């Protein structure tokens, strides 16, 4: 009898062991854009003024990276039609980011994909009609909406790299500077000679109280000085760093940057355990606007910050903060937009998603509060805040449907659609 029990126990054990070994692994946890620490920023984004707007979003077969092609869409006023303005000459499967320089210049940077391990840059002076300045960047650009910046056409360009990069001392030179991690590089003229300007490590040393974890955004200020945003691990503090006033661009190589937000604490975060990440930086009518992602004791929230230019630490009282916009558990930040305007709605727009549910929230002028729009159309992946109205972009394969919401109304109005000539299979 004992033998029978022993055999039975062995059999049950064997079955259990084999069965356990054969069980598929449980799916991983939170997705990148839903992470508690804002370590992954959504690339779907937009940037707009009253007279021009552009948006970056993925189209094509989104379940297949080789057939997902990121597009730049552009338009003039909020009432004009969207057009395709994707920079030519390179596959955009890896994603792209756009930014506005001064004088209406539109910058685009394409992220590496597959066998390519560096990024490319293109610049347009006519809002994406033609891309007249093209060059490659000496490494992979950070996957973030504000990873590249410039002033007017032909002037210096700054890009935020993440990963292995190397720059030659001359276009054909073999000796070079190289490194890893997050680095701001700059170049001017034909963009053939890039220089490393600063790194996460450099900026950590000027802001020990920030506990800088990463760089997340870069912007050229009106006077040519660069500002760089980052993620601070110290509660309440947020990372915004600026070049010295006396130096700008490549001339500032080796100059000591300043922590522009030294002493500035996000209200309500003083004693909390958490982090603050600069998700977006853009110019506003009065200075700078920043969209911050914060985490307070494990709960995420968004805050819009307005600052004068230059945002020196001599006037901390001039910083203004929106109320916290809680991001409930399970919801992800899908897209962000910045909109410069003097109208009632201006500052930032965000698209949140939880399964099939979507929410769009907009800041009032000056970022004083958050306004919720009616639920956007199903399938919306990007939003644009222009001239006090919000546009939802809804891609489906090669077609892009657009809808507009005007404050005070309860519906999204369908606007003209756009068809993109996507070359499926070209990146396989």
């Amino acid at each position, binding site marked *: 009898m004992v033998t029978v029990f022993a*055999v039975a126990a*062995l*059999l*049950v054990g*064997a*079955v259990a062991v*084999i*069965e356990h*070994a*054969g*069980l*598929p692994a449980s799916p991983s946890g939170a997705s990148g854009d839903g992470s508690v620490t804002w370590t992954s920023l959504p690339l779907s984004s937009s940037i707009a003024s009253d007279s021009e707007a552009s948006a970056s979003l993925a189209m094509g077969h989104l379940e297949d990276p080789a057939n997902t*092609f*990121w*597009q730049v869409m552009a338009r003039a006023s909020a009432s004009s039609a969207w057009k*395709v303005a*994707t*920079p*030519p*000459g*390179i*596959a*955009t*499967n*890896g994603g*792209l980011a756009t930014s506005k320089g001064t004088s209406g210049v539109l910058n685009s940077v394409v992220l*590496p*994909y*597959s*066998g*390519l*391990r*560096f990024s*490319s840059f*293109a610049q347009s002076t006519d809002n994406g009609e033609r*891309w007249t300045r*093209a*060059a*490659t960047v*000496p490494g992979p650009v950070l996957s973030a909406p504000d990873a590249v910046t410039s002033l007017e056409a032909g002037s210096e360009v700054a890009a935020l790299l993440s990963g292995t990069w*190397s720059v*030659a001392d001359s*276009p*054909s030179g*073999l000796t*070079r500077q190289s490194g890893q991690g997050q680095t701001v590089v700059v170049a001017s003229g*034909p*963009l*053939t*000679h890039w220089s490393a300007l600063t790194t996460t490590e450099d900026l950590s040393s000027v802001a020990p109280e920030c506990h800088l974890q990463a760089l997340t955004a870069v912007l050229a200020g009106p006077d040519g000085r660069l500002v760089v945003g980052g993620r601070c691990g110290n509660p309440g503090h947020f990372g915004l760093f600026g070049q010295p006033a006396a130096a700008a661009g490549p001339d500032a190589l080796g100059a000591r940057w300043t922590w522009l937000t030294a002493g500035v604490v996000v209200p309500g975060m003083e004693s909390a355990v958490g982090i603050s990440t600069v998700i977006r930086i853009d110019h506003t009518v009065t200075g700078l606007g920043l969209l911050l992602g914060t985490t307070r004791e494990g709960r995420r929230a968004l805050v819009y910050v307005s600052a004068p230019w230059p945002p020196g630490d001599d006037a901390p009282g001039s910083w203004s903060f929106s109320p916290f916009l809680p991001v409930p558990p399970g919801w992800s930040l899908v897209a962000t937009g910045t909109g410069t305007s003097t109208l009632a709605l201006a500052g930032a727009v965000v698209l949140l998603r939880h399964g099939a549910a979507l929410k769009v929230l907009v800041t009032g002028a000056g970022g004083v509060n958050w306004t919720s729009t009616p639920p956007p159309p199903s399938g919306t992946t990007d939003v644009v805040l222009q001239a006090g109205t919000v546009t939802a972009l809804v891609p489906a394969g*090669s077609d892009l449907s657009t809808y507009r919401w005007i404050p005070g109304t309860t519906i999204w109005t369908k606007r003209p659609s756009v068809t*993109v*000539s*996507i*070359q499926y299979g*070209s*990146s*396989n």
Partner: protein
Amino acid sequence: MTGMGGGGGNSSIVLQAFQNALLRQGSLLLIVALVLFVAWNGLRSFQYRQMVRARSGSDGGAGQLAVDRPGSHLATLGTEPVARRVARIGFGAFWIFDGLLQVQSGMPLGLPTNVLQPAAATSPGWVQGIVNFGVTLWTRHPVTAAAATVWIQVGIGLLLIVAPRGRWSELAGLASLLWGMVVWIFGNAFGAIFAPGLTFLFGAPGAVLFYAIAGGLVALPERVWRTERLGRYLLVGMGVFLLVMAGLQAFPGRGFWQGSLGGEPGTLVAMTRTMAATPQPHATSALVSWFSRLAEHHAVLVNLVATAIMAVVGGAFVAGRRLRTALGLLAVFCVFDWVFVENFGFLGGTGTDPNSMLPFLLLALVAVLAATSWSGGGEPAPKATPATPADGPGGVRRSWWQKVDTSWAGRLAAMVGAIVMILVGSAPMAVAALNPQADPIVIEAANGVPEVANGPAPGFSLVDQHGRPVSLASFRGSTVVLTFLDPVCVNDCPTIAQELLVANEQLGPDAANVKFVAVATNPVYHSITTVNQFNRQENLENVGNWYFLTGTLSELQSVWNAYNAGGTVLPGGSMILHSDVVYIIDSSGQIRSIVNSNPGAATNGVLPSSFSNLVDQQVRAVQKS
């Protein structure tokens, strides 16, 4: 059901090479067989003539042949146990059948994608890593590997059948064990026993494992077979295995009790639907489809019956009782499963074996025979009579030809033939395993054979990655490997560049007089900085004979037009459209061959050197001419 995914990858170039290899090696084996036959027949004739001559005189029995006497070679070994004979001949036949399946045209290119990779797809990473060795070997040398497998398997089968006794037979068993384990590990991913969805009904733990076990048993000394102990151990092992499989079949949450799971088919239904979709005659597909519907509508009943039969037979085997009844039940179960679930196991164009049910049934028969018929399982060898030089009747000394048993010699010839067959397969396989370079035929299968050309190469003047002026004329005296690369291309161009780098390294000293030249083929991104970034990315910066040329857009466009290289801007975020072609230009500036360099699936990842070898082949041909 290894390989029942449809016979993909059926390139005519590879198929022709495969058939040529089989024909070549088969011819060699035929010659060996003829030589052995002639030798054996010559011996018989000689023996006969000598016997007639001896009997015509009065030799006192010297004319008696070895085979006529009780002391002949086979007679000294006694009778072979029945169970061993069944195992040897049965699994020998299976090996031959499997070897013949390897002749299918889809094997050279289809086996990795239809058999090896699917077998490991759901297994843990370490299993996939091991299987990847087999995938890589086969994919790099598809013709060698496919032909070798044919001869190895047919050879092992023949050896098992024709070598009934002694060390030759044990050697055959050992060969079966070793090759069976190689196939089970590298080809069957351990029979997918580490993957989810493990079930005996669908082939776990892999047919070839039973071949290996049978081989191991045949390799045992024959005296082991003469007791019932071997059969008992084997029965207990198989019984425990069946009980574990029954437990797994009944384990809740594995989807076998459900015909559908939230709108999706249950586990058994999904498996049988996949089998029914395999390319095959309608009649066989209909059988599986019928069972699939049965499993869908009566999932509980089907699983209950399957579990119960496995449990009852397993219990009987462990207890050693009612063995013949249990064997009969198992036979019905196995044949039913083989037809209605496993779908015969070898259909679809790349099936490699008849799946597990028949080999398992045969092994069970062997176990029952070994455990129950030991008394009739062969007679022990008689006391050996020492062979003496003068062991003829009346103490007459016999000649050497009288000592030779020609029937045994015939068997010996067949055994030697089988071993030569195994060697004809295993030797090239071993060489291929040690060769990390893929055969050029792989890229030829994907892109076609190089186009032979003989005309002047259009001249050009551009600048290299250092900004130095370079023209085609400046390369006179060297063989030029010319291609067109987009420096911001995301897939083909980095792969082609790496292939050319490997080609350059493989040329060794011959590379001294070869220039590898790429022309930037992107109307937007073609600056010197950009081509240098590509060079840095691909580790080409310090390659002395590598030239990545560029120029103004108009200069480049004239070169693209001259070589029909493309350079077209595509909309919607696509990369530049350009040709994937390599021109081999001789030292006098004549284009001698045009190689399609589209890496596609042929060189990506698994095959990093097939194209390199082809380029080297072309370069050396040009240099020699």
